[in-house]
């Protein structure tokens, strides 16, 4: 009897280790190893095919003189500043509409979710055609309505907002679902009580709906921020980072350094530096959210 118990524990530990082995292997191979290897790369010059060359901190000295990289970070932040509020407002408005008793509710919900599951490249090419200055459908319609054409992707002031609009359109379905979940969790009696007290729709929205959706909004902000920092496909396909570097995102710049120019060490350095910036932003967000709570 005394021997049975440790043996059961031993067996169950072994089973536990075996059960977690696939994930441990996955983690070591696809997350742990790349992180460690990238860290080693920071101090090297390497183009994949020639042997790695130790260069100490020279990648860092290059980074701090690299204006293009800082432009790319600024562009990414500009994208976030436009994209996040736009995403929240549009998703919330549509969620409020879809939460009402309307016909074809399921159809509309599916319709708004469709772009989320369509390939990013396909959507980007589609919008590239819509945005085309001389031949695009949007400018064609605007000309017919007597409105001046907008240089969507060929003007430094318009290019990043255009990409943000497109990204919002693509992702809005996901956030609508999140907001719908939040809206359906608000007790009905709160609205009934407010109605009895004479509160109008707008007052109900600002004093019941919005506070009740606080945690959903926080989630949307965090998800949009993470998505925004990884902005890549849209500028890669639509603008190549132009015009005049105005849509060059940090991810695109890191990709170019690594895979166009073969500067794996430098790209790893940029990657770590960028990860540090993301960490700072997330910490600031966390602090802000905690204070709010």
């Amino acid at each position, binding site marked *: 009897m005394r021997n049975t118990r440790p043996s059961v524990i031993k067996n169950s530990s072994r089973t536990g280790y075996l059960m977690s082995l696939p994930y441990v292997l996955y983690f070591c191979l696809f997350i742990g190893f790349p992180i460690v290897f990238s860290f080693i790369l920071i101090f090297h010059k390497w183009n994949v095919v020639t042997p790695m060359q130790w260069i100490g901190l020279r990648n860092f000295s290059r980074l701090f003189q690299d204006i293009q990289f800082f432009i790319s970070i600024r562009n990414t932040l500009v994208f976030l500043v436009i994209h996040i509020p736009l995403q929240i407002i549009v998703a919330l408005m549509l969620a409020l509409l879809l939460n009402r008793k309307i016909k074809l509710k399921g159809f509309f919900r599916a319709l708004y979710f469709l772009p989320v599951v369509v390939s990013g490249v396909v959507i980007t090419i589609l919008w590239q055609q819509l945005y085309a200055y001389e*031949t695009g459908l949007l400018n064609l319609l605007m000309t017919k309505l007597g409105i001046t054409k907008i240089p969507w992707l060929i003007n430094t002031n318009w290019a990043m907002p255009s990409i943000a609009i497109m990204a919002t359109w693509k992702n809005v379905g996901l956030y609508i679902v999140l907001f719908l979940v939040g809206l359906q969790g608000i007790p009905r009696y709160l609205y009934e009580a407010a109605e009895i007290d004479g509160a109008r729709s707008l007052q109900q929205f600002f004093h019941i709906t919005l506070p009740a959706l606080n945690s959903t909004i926080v989630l949307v902000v965090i998800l949009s921020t993470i998505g925004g920092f990884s902005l890549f496909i849209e500028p890669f396909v639509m603008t190549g980072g132009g015009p005049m570097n105005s849509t060059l995102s940090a991810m695109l710049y890191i990709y170019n350094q690594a895979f166009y120019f073969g500067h794996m060490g430098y790209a790893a350095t940029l990657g770590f530096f960028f990860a540090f910036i993301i960490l700072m932003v997330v910490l600031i967000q966390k602090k802000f959210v905690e204070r709010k709570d």
Partner: protein
Amino acid sequence: MTYNKAIITFLLLSCALNTSCEKKRAAQPVAEQGAVRLTYWCASNQDEINFARELVDSWNADNSQIQVFLQPIPASQSSEEALLAAIAGKTTPDICSNMWPGAMDDFTSSGGLVRFDQFPDFIAYVQKRMPAALLESFRSPDGHYYQIPWKTNPIMVMYNKKMYREAGVTKPIRTYSEYLTASAKITRDVDGDGRIDQWMGYRDIRPIWWQRLFDYYTFYIAASGGETLFDGTDIAFENTASVKVFQFFSEIYRNGYYPLTTFQGDAFLAGQVATQFTGPWNITHVENFKAPGFEYGISPIPVPDDHTGLVYTYGDHKNISIFSTTKYPEAVWQFAKYLISAQADLRLLEICSQIPLRKNLTTDPLYHNYFQQNPMMMQFAEQAPYTRGVDGSSVLKEIFDAISQEYEACAVYNKRTPEEAINKATKRAQVIIAWSKR
């Protein structure tokens, strides 16, 4: 349990036996091994796959001792990326016929390629096919040859004859001012809806380095009389030719002769643009998809008005290399000789509409019928000796990126003068070179 053990033992034994056989086979000389099996990577476009398939089938039928397995280059953004990944993973083929000279530095410095000059008959065989001076231009900085210059695609102007006629352009355009004058007439609103719907040309304006090969670089080679970006190891493009090219494109975009748009489909075939800068490979495409009555012509790249002498252009060269992972370099060399034989070159013309780097191509009786039946290809063939490739530099892409950024700022958006833009691109190129040397 016993059953499982038996299966595992069987599998382990078969692996061990198989490995041991492989090792024995590799150690044996070619003659004793039975058939040698080589892997050949060709470009992944359908014409070249068809061409390579025909050649490989014919080779395999005649050479039972050296059997070739054909595979198009694996899908990737570019052939160079696929090849670099293969070198890194040691999964390179024995031979590849889609080597871009601009990437040779990376391939050779990694020790990924076999020296052709180790074969005693290499120089004599290749010099029979092409001029010695041209072969010399493909010698690597270490003094060896790692590539057989195979084919070139001179970039020229393909123009819509009807649109030229309607604009009163009666002969092929030769100079910048002729091009700009024609542009002013051709770029217009054809259907009268108040929107421009016909342009002189179109270029992808995204700042992507390789796009500049087909506008700035092609025009720079033409304007400079055949210069490239480097003079030895020094940057050499800060000159009048570069400034004139930037001025020319700046004029085009300022006046709206090229749209800042993207097109769905082929704008040239759709009659939306009158000219495009392209190579001979495009003839097959145009012939296959042109509308009835669509007429087009070929002319050299326009040059500055004061240009004298021959008009050079960018030749998009693709060469043949043997990878150092091969176990049978001699056998691969035999196959490489077959790929550049006179008959194979004829099939290259016929199937792919690409120009083999062969001297006397236009006068050789073997090709006479082909050129008689394909007069436009004759124009590309005549231009072929006056082409320049790219410099072999490990930072070439970055330098093109620097040029691309300034081209965009100056030519497309008119934010900088040509002089400023060229100066800035040169300075950045110098920083890139200095950094790469450290």
